[in-house]
């Protein structure tokens, strides 16, 4: 039977569309009102609230927790001091990405790792003789993402420490008498926070938050708006932009972190001697330049796009609806050189954009490539250029 988030009593009252997706077996609103774009703009211009509760969450504790995680996570968890969070990934021994997620470190020996899919057996099997306990706490914690330029001021009125919280910082506080953790994290590419709430008292916190947000232009937003935000922000989605190496049929279904654009996680590889799963493969990939792809942004030439549709007798579509399907990209000689994995028309950038993987030599920002689109039931090849991610990156995100 489909499950409900701890906030469902409230989110279902607000969802006027009756549209829900099943996310990890849990109902998640696609949009709350008829216009997902209106919700999207609320986040970019004021603030929005998204129920992230269906995420998988694992609590990892014990005196060896850091050492354990330093060996299984590809990014060095030791650089994440207590009171901070980190975006991380874990790889297999061939250097292919299993998953990515955000990990919170509320205390020296305590971590909370989020994941899109179940990972308990995978991590538990790796513990060996380390003094580490790992437990799944997915249902025990409700998560509300408060994202957008007003999020800091709004949350700081409830938990003053939020005002000074740095990007990926963590703080503890109470809302409606309920102890909560607040991290400066999110999936919108904007200034934003996530509030981690004991599930049993989720509604009390929800009610206090909404009462205090009243009149500030805050809207709940659903998956459609979230996907718009994350594509602009260059944030990847499992099973859309990459797949877990554990379940790939062939290596074509697998990606390395370097191919996904995360080489910045490994800048210190030469100077830090840290064994972790996939290290040797990643070192080889970097040294031998064996990456097959590079994930990059793509910005479509608006003029070519509009003229192509106009020639076909059509109104050029500028649809913000996120598309989680592949489109092929080509070089000038007509050779396929990659594919997009997520695309949309960006209202903020006023361009069609995509997350795209291309052959590494084409990844330099500004490289011209052609995007294959179906126009009037025929393929057309529209001019486009690669661009550095994130495509939308307001200074307030990290300021």
């Amino acid at each position, binding site marked *: 039977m489909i499950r409900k988030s701890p906030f469902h009593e409230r989110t279902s009252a607000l969802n006027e*569309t009756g549209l829900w997706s099943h996310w990890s077996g849990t109902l998640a609103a696609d949009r709350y*009102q*008829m*216009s997902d*774009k*209106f919700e999207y*703009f609320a986040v*970019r*211009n*004021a603030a929005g609230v998204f129920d992230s509760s269906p995420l998988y969450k694992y609590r990892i504790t014990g005196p060896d927790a850091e050492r354990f995680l330093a060996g299984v996570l590809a990014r060095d968890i030791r650089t994440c001091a207590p009171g901070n969070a980190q975006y991380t990934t874990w790889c297999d021994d061939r250097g292919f990405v299993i998953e990515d997620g955000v990990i919170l470190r509320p205390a020296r020996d305590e971590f909370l790792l989020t994941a899109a899919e179940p990972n308990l057996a995978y991590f538990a099997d790796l513990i060996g003789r380390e003094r580490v306990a790992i437990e799944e706490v997915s249902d025990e914690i409700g998560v509300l993402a408060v994202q957008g330029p*007003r999020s800091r001021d709004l949350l700081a009125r409830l938990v003053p420490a939020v005002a000074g919280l740095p990007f990926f910082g963590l703080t503890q506080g109470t809302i409606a008498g309920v102890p909560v953790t607040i991290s400066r994290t999110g999936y919108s590419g904007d200034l934003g926070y996530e509030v981690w709430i004991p599930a049993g008292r989720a509604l009390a916190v929800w009610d206090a938050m909404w009462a205090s947000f*009243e*009149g*500030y*232009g805050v809207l709940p937003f659903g998956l459609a708006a979230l996907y718009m935000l994350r594509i602009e922000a260059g944030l990847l989605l499992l099973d859309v932009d990459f797949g877990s190496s554990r379940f790939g049929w062939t290596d074509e279904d697998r990606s390395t972190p370097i191919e996904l654009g995360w080489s910045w996680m490994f800048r210190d590889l030469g100077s830090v001697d840290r064994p972790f799963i996939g290290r040797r493969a990643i070192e080889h990939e970097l040294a031998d330049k064996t990456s097959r792809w590079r994930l990059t942004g793509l910005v479509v030439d*608006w*003029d070519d796009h*509009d003229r192509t549709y*106009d020639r076909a007798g059509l*109104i*050029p*579509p*500028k*649809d*913000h609806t996120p598309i989680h399907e592949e489109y092929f990209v080509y070089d000038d000689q007509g050779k396929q050189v990659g594919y997009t994995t997520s695309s949309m*028309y960006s*209202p*903020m*950038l*006023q361009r069609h954009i995509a997350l795209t993987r291309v052959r590494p030599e084409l990844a330099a920002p500004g490289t011209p490539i052609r995007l294959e689109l179906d126009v009037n039931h025929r393929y057309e090849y529209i001019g486009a250029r690669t661009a550095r991610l994130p495509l939308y990156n307001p200074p307030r995100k990290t300021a």
Partner: protein
Amino acid sequence: MTPNQRSKMPSKAATPKPGPKASDTTYDAIVIGAGHNGMVNGAYLAKAGLKTLILERRGNVGGAAITEELKPGFWFTTFSYALSLLRPEIIHDLELTKHGFMPLLMSSSFAPTEDGDYLWLGQDHGENLKEIARHSKHDADAYNQYSHDMEMVCRAIKPLLDAAPPDLFSDDPDELLALAALRSRFRGMDKRTLHNTVRLLTGSAADFLNDYFESDILKGYLASSSIIGTKVGPYSQGSGLVLLYHSIGEHDGEFGAWAFHKQGNGGFTKVLARAAQSFGAEIVLESPVANVITRGGRAIGVALADGTEYHATTVVSALDPRRTFLELVDPRELPTDLVETITRFRFQGTSSKVNFALDGLPEHPALPGRSDQFRGFTNIGPSMEYLEHAFDDAKYGWYSQRPYMDCAIQSTIDADMAPPGKHVMSTFIAYTPYKLRESDWDTERQNLGDTVQATFESFFPGFSDLVLHREVVTPLDIERTVGLSEGNIFAGEFLAPQMYFFRPAPGWSQYRTPIDGYYQCGSGTHPGGCVMGAPGKLAAERILKDRARA
């Protein structure tokens, strides 16, 4: 002498102090007026490498597209209040997204009826059809046909907005080619679309809408777009053209959809100013131009009211045709037939604004406790008869006693427009003729405000209790503050004899003037008003071509 010197500044504006001077006295191009078209023009010229100076009479950029804090925390879009016709090329060419361009979607339209019901259209097509069917099952189907027919016409007509009209009177091979291209565009249209285009360009909105629909509220809602800014009623021949114009507007490719720019159209013109400056254009405020300096039939610069002179080989007026031809230059330097045409050019502004600061959101009797119907326009024009009756008053020199109102509670779209829990409402009013019979606007200003407030109250009982502050902007105030003659919001009415080949005058629709080096780029030129930017852009193209030839 400019009209600006003659006009009295409204009491709310500070007396202009002598502004900072420009950094130099000699430029390649000087643009008169930092409204949206002046800045678009100046930005394109600067981008092309011209040393460009934009001179503005007032202490702020934006012209009629400004946002002002009239009560602490409450921001009013004093005049122009929404975006839809802005040309997408301008967004890209001037890299506006880098400078903060942010067109927030207005996601619904709410139209109350006189008997306490409403028509509420939003972003879900299927739901919209059911909502229309509540009023007429026939019209739900007709609406699909109407929308498709209109989109076909819009698609066909839209390219005309993005190119200068060919010169009908020229033997230049380029012009003949452009005319041939225009002819082939029309010949390429299917018969139905061509006929619909002609019906709209020449006929009345009422005839056109009656051919599709039976529901009063739907017809009233749609016909409201046919009377904006022009002295026509929905039954007048010519209102079809105004309807068509407003239907071409778009939000991200969706015809007929509107955006509210972050911080209003004043926010938008600030983005434009930043873009123009990023290309090197210099904008100098509080610098009223008294006249264009000419020598031997050539423009060589401008003189400010204080006597300061700036020199340039290209001078561009972003002001309306009356200012451009009859006031900035000596009409005796111009051909007589041009002077005659401009003299009889129809302005006759009929639009006003009443802007409200509100203590909370109004409530509709049929939707107690709801407020999400206000995330777009609220249209007070419940039937075509209502609109026509409103026009009847104007025909005989008076303002509508039950006016047409296009309202937007902008703080529901951009929360930064008002303090938390409070709101601002922009209300566009028709009809309010510039020339009143046996009275004047200084006498009638607050009476108009009362009329508007009472009319809104009749649809939303309890509204008046929410009003914290009210600003009434009559056609006279528009003229005084912004300089638009007779307060016409389009810098000249949208009437067929004043459009395309004839905007602003036959033979002068290509942004040149009879004075060499003196150009026009305001909304009085093709394709006209609304915050479209096309006149500024097309004029810049003309100027750059002419300079390349010279």
